[in-house]
């Protein structure tokens, strides 16, 4: 995930945000069969909920994201990861929308995850945390909305792993939402993507400081493994064209190669920096759990091979977006969602945006993405009667 520091972020009175304990009386039954009770959900909100509750927007974050979607990150001090889309005059505007973003289940920014304390043992969960799925994340979000008293969302929106949650939302709770905007996401994780994730997990698990996941008890952290995982993953978020444009074969602060293994090339230095800064804000076990949740995501298998059955009779209005240079979630994979939605005559728009920025394009300044979202959301607001507070 990348940030553009110069852009202003939405003012937020309480930077630490909210958190709530859920599932105390009514546990969260996970796909793996474990009942999670209780668990904490940490979340941020922006803008007021209007009287008829028609302006609530749930933003689902990606693998390395968190609830600080439009406010300064408490650890890095950087603007919210989607400040480009959220703010005055932007597609999501706190003056019009009540925007909710919660740290996903299994995350490490306040929501219960492997770095939380297991109430049963008083110790950090580590790898004793149950394996969670995208559907589990969505169930936890739905419980949060129940707690907040929000019955129906105007929009559920997200990119990448966030887009997977959007699709899961539309499949599980079609009557709780007017619109769904899955961006740069597929209905099932590809073999190639599972492969990349496995490389990342192996980098973490072979770090001697991982200690079979119980590094917290030893007061260490497999930072080197996590950094390598992040470096490998980061390449998949970009594109060859973007790497060439940004770095080419340019050397890092030197005029010639050193015949050694320092970061001679700018691209090496950049990736090392990405890896090092990531470990400051992310938990290695969380990375294992969230990548696993993405690997397990397969809405096609969930519906006996017919993805369309996930959306049969859906009242939800969809806007599906892909990017030409995204090789993590390619347009042809994204189009499978569109085909399935067409097969049930769902109300769907599909836009492929021309860019060389790769998968990361969903986080970056892409005027066509903004135009698409603004047009879609304002037309949907008219159709569904979503009002400004």
């Amino acid at each position: 995930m990348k940030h553009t520091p110069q852009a202003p972020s939405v003012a937020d009175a309480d930077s630490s945000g909210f958190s709530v304990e859920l599932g105390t009386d009514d546990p969260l039954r996970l796909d793996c069969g474990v009942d999670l009770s209780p668990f904490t959900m940490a979340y941020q909100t922006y803008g007021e909920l209007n009287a008829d509750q028609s302006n609530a927007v749930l933003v689902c974050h990606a693998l390395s994201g968190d609830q600080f979607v439009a406010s300064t990150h408490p650890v890095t001090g950087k603007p919210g990861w989607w400040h480009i889309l959220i703010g005055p005059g932007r597609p999501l505007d706190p003056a019009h929308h009540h925007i909710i973003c919660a740290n996903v289940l299994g995350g490490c920014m306040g929501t219960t995850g492997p770095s939380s304390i297991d109430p049963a043992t008083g110790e950090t969960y580590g790898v004793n945390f149950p394996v969670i799925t995208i559907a589990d994340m969505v169930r936890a979000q739905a419980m949060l909305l129940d707690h907040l008293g929000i019955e129906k969302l105007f929009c559920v929106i997200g990119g990448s792993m966030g887009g997977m949650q959007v699709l899961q939302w539309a499949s599980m709770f079609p009557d709780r939402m007017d619109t769904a905007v899955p961006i740069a996401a597929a209905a099932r994780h590809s073999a190639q993507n599972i492969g990349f994730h496995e490389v990342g997990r192996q980098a973490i698990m072979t770090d001697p400081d991982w200690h079979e996941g119980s590094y917290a008890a030893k007061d260490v952290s497999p930072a080197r493994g996590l950094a390598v995982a992040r470096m490998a993953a980061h390449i998949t978020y970009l594109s060859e064209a973007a790497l060439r444009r940004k770095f080419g074969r340019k050397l890092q602060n030197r005029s010639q190669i050193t015949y050694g293994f320092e970061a001679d090339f700018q691209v090496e230095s950049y990736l090392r920096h990405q890896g090092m800064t990531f470990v400051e804000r992310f938990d290695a076990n969380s990375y294992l759990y969230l990548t696993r949740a993405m690997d397990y995501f397969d809405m096609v298998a969930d519906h006996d091979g017919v993805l369309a059955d996930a959306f049969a009779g859906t009242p939800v209005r969809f806007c599906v977006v892909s990017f030409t240079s995204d090789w993590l979630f390619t347009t042809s994979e994204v189009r499978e969602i569109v085909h399935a939605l067409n097969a049930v005559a769902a109300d769907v728009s599909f836009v492929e945006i021309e860019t060389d920025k790769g998968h990361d394009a969903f986080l970056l300044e892409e005027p066509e993405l903004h135009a698409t979202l603004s047009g879609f959301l304002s037309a949907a607001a008219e159709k569904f009667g979503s009002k400004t507070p």
Partner: protein
Amino acid sequence: MTDDVLPNGHAGSAAPVQYEIRGDLKLIADMIAPGSRVLDVGCGDGALLIHLAKNLDVNGRGIELSQAGVNATVAQGLSVVQGDADTDLADYPTQAFDYVVLSQTLQATRNPKQVVSDLVRIGAKAIVSFPNFGYWQVRWQLLLGGRMPRTGILGEDWFETQNIHLCTILDFIDLCQELGIVIERGISVNQQGRASGISNSGWAANFFGEQAVFLLSRKNN
């Protein structure tokens, strides 16, 4: 027999009156009942869908080949997907829409016969408009000039055109018969934009009509 003069004729009108949409689209819109569900295949810039949504409270969707066209239309708030009539109509379920519209696109499809059968399968009714290759000017140009005809509606050189399956009104009527499709209404439009009903034989329309609009349905509806 309808005999209404179309507003906004084709290129060459000295002082065109500003109307909401192109004349042939207006003819199509007039065939659509208010409040219905419409799929516009090859919706271009979405002019028909916008007109239908604003004036007839239609729940409209579009398919458009050009991604740039799709992006611009979605930004206007319309539900449009990038797609190809030849390959993507198969995705759509039977009788999902009240009307499926294919305007000025049939002649650019690879398999017009399959496309037309899909239209009447997906929609309770289908509306198809196309340039008539039996139009007298087309015949005249080919007969006397000996070169591929160019008319107002067929304005491109043979090596540039997307039109690979041009047909005449009579050809189209034959295709409908072969596919067991009921022609509920047929309208031809001459160079001046004058619309006339197409008679059973279709001979006059095939000669004087520069383009045609047909309202179709399946026989066993």
